[in-house]
């Protein structure tokens, strides 16, 4: 083990459109790394370049210390020589082969002796809870089972690297949640480096050691899930990761540890963040970082428009002037529509 991926200055053009526009990142050994972004952001193209299914227009890709693609040196190793496991979005389990044949194919194609093939297939099937299904054909399997077969096929050669292209998007919500844990466990137990592509931020947050947020073919921000959540570098990231309220406001003063802000409604308050921004800006507020109380002087005054009891939290929509904010409160008392409340702001992020 102990092999990672290194992507440097990757470009991929389709005609004149740059699907991937100068991307560099590295996946460390045994790391779970996710490319996260809306559809069309270039994440799948990046993955396919690493797999060798697309030829990069520019840039280089290294796996371990082996150069897999290098546009400048004219190298592009065909996918079958890269020794990578891959799970496709639609599973791509071959319909004319049974479970065993599907899982053992990568071993058979590399001429592994048949008794070793059998042992490894059994081992993989046990690990993925497919025991007893070996002779079944894909058409006789549920979506979740097909998913496991696809995983098993990718794992059978014990690859150091595994690429997963939105593997959970075709599963129902419950199964998806369960598979998240299983994938994470699998990665911990096997010590494989996983590059995971998804548009589902919850999925990426739940499993990844690090996440790269992509948009329009570039990486906008890279880091640990919690860091990205707490410190989104751009409005796009704040919007894409979790739920965020955006309010237009003015910075009217600041100190080393706090900033004074005036909302359009005229009310002013202080937030515990320092900033260089002056004048007009956008305030990003997480719904759970706003605390409502019936009285007090902290924060600003607002009016409750509607509150929905969700069990663990109460989901409010409150009004300040013309803008509406979402608030998730864990406070036991429930405000009613029309109630005047004080909204105390915890963490905020300011954007130009």
């Amino acid at each position: 083990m102990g092999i990672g991926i290194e992507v440097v200055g990757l470009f991929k053009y389709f005609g004149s459109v740059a699907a991937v526009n100068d991307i560099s990142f590295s996946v460390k050994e045994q790391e779970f790394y996710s490319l996260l972004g809306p559809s069309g952001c270039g994440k799948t193209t990046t993955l396919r370049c690493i797999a060798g299914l697309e030829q990069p227009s520019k840039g280089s890709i290294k796996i371990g210390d082996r150069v897999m693609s290098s546009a400048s040196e004219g190298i592009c190793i065909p996918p079958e020589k890269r020794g990578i496991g891959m799970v496709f979005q639609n599973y791509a389990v071959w319909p004319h082969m049974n479970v065993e044949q599907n899982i053992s194919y990568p071993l058979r194609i590399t001429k592994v002796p048949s008794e070793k093939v059998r042992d490894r297939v059994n081992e993989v099937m046990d690990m993925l809870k497919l025991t007893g299904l070996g002779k079944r054909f894909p058409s006789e399997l549920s979506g979740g089972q097909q998913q496991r077969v696809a995983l098993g096929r990718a794992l059978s050669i014990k690859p150091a690297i595994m690429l997963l292209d939105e593997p959970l998007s075709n599963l129902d919500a419950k199964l998806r949640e369960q598979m998240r844990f299983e994938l994470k466990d699998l990665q911990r137990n096997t010590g494989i480096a996983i590059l995971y592509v998804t548009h589902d931020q919850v999925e990426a947050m739940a499993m990844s050691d690090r996440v790269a947020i992509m948009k329009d073919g570039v990486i906008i921000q890279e880091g640990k899930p919690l860091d990205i959540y707490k410190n989104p570098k751009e409005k796009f990231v704040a919007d894409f990761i979790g739920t965020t309220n955006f309010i237009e406001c003015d910075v009217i003063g600041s100190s080393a540890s706090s900033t004074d802000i005036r909302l359009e409604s005229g009310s002013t308050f202080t937030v515990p963040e320092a900033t260089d921004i002056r004048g007009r800006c956008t305030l990003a507020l997480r719904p759970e970082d706003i605390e409502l109380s019936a009285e007090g002087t902290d924060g600003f005054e607002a009016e409750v428009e509607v509150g929905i009891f969700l069990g663990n939290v109460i989901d409010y929509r409150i009004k300040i002037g013309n803008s509406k904010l979402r608030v998730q409160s864990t406070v036991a008392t429930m405000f009613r529509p029309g109630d005047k409340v004080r909204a105390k702001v915890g963490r905020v992020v300011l954007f130009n």
Partner: protein
Amino acid sequence: MSSPNGKLTARESNALDMRYVFLALTGALFVGIIVYPLYHVLAKSFVSGSGLSLANYVKVFSNPTNFKALWNSIWMSATTSVIAMVAGTSLALFVIRTDIPCKNLLRIMLLMPYAIPPFIGAIAWTQLFGPAGYISKAYINLFGSYDVPWNIYSTGGIVLVMAMYQFPVVFITVSGALGRLDPSFEEASRMSGANAFKTMRDVTIPLVMPSIMAGTLLAFVGAISNFGIPALLGFRARFYVLTTRIYSALAIPDMPLATAMAVLLAITAGAALFVQIKFEKGQSRYTVISGKSVRPQTISLGKWRMPIFFMVVAVSLFASIVPMASMLLTSVLKYWGAPIKLSNLTLKHFSYVFNLEMARRALKNSFILAVLAATVTMALGAVVSYMSVKAKMKAAVVLDIVGTFPYAVPCTVIAIAMILAWSKPPIMLYGTLWIMLAAYLVRYMPFSIRTTRATLQQIHSSLEEAARMSGAGWLQTMRHIVVPLIKPGLIAGWILVFMPAFRELTMSVLLWSQGNETIGVVIYNMQDAGNTQIAAAISSIVLLLILVGNVIVRKVSKGQVGL
């Protein structure tokens, strides 16, 4: 580590070059066998004497018989297609959208005439409704009259028999569209307060109208391109259409006239197909993409249920089972016109056929031609489709179009093209078996490209990519994944070319020569010469083979494909 990398890259690019070599060879072949002959027809039609002129066309329009043939072709096909439209559409609505019993059986029975070669159907109808036909005689016995109030050898007879063999086209197109129609359109209409019949009138039929029109135009093209029915039923009545006039012009031989009429035929059929494609595209706006969906409620026919059922059964019986039974009966009767009883049955016509040198030769010729035509077209079709669908090569898309184009060219025109292109040095095929092979290749290339394309499109490219990621090279991926997955499609496609090629008539009848007869030609000549029972015996053998072939195709394709 970098030197082996370099080598692999080189090998990869070699594989890519090989694909272009494949493609270039196929392209050259297409130009040779498709483009060159078809271009010849157009060019030759404008040549008269020594220079370019419109003389051949002037000849067509100045001779009233020729002009009449064009007019006959058009109105005969138009009448046929209107009947086919009404019959095909109402049958589709009955079978797909009402509570009529035995739906699946009816569907299969209504598709059966599609598998029967029209000229064999025409022969069977003369046996049934001709002057000494089974039904004619039954009518005379029943009513004690001396004559029957109908004549199968007439324009009416041609239109009726033609409609029998063209309505399945409308039926297939419309029932396909009904099956793919998003049921929520109809459910919304019911929820808006419309009853079942109003829903059908205001929603269902308007929504499948593009398919109804497309099917009707296909029936028009099928009718105008057909030779067997107007030849077997029309010559006696002196009713000529373009295909039969071209046949006569070639017998004179007046090649320039035949060529000019062929161009007119091609233009008429081509125009109809052009409009048909527009309608087909229009229909795709209303179809559900994701295949299966909940069927909407069927319309209850109430007290009309059984009468309509029997009517549909009667139509399907007369279109397929009755002609086939008549054919078989004729082939085992001691003599034509013999009373039908056990002592009058014999197998002597079959033993005569099997001992007839010409019939055996024709069987062999047709078999060889059909095997070669099916094998070569499927191989080329698979290459072209793979390159255009999977490898997404632009040059292959051009080949795809070139190879599919002959679909719009009536068989008679293809035959004329073959004579023009291959009866002069350096390539002299006229007078040999191979000119028919050349014609079959042109004719069936579109079918092969279409079936291979459809088969390949069903295979998601990730199935191939998964093999590459598993360590398989391009060739191994082909061998282990692509070929096994498309094999049922290829086999079904092969048989779907083999069967119509085996009993082909329209082209063969213009291209055959002594010693190079095909089975279709022998049946036609036997019937034409009055050897009804010999023709019936050979036709029965052909029908049996078609039946067997159909069963195999259905098995191989798991019921998805059939004639």
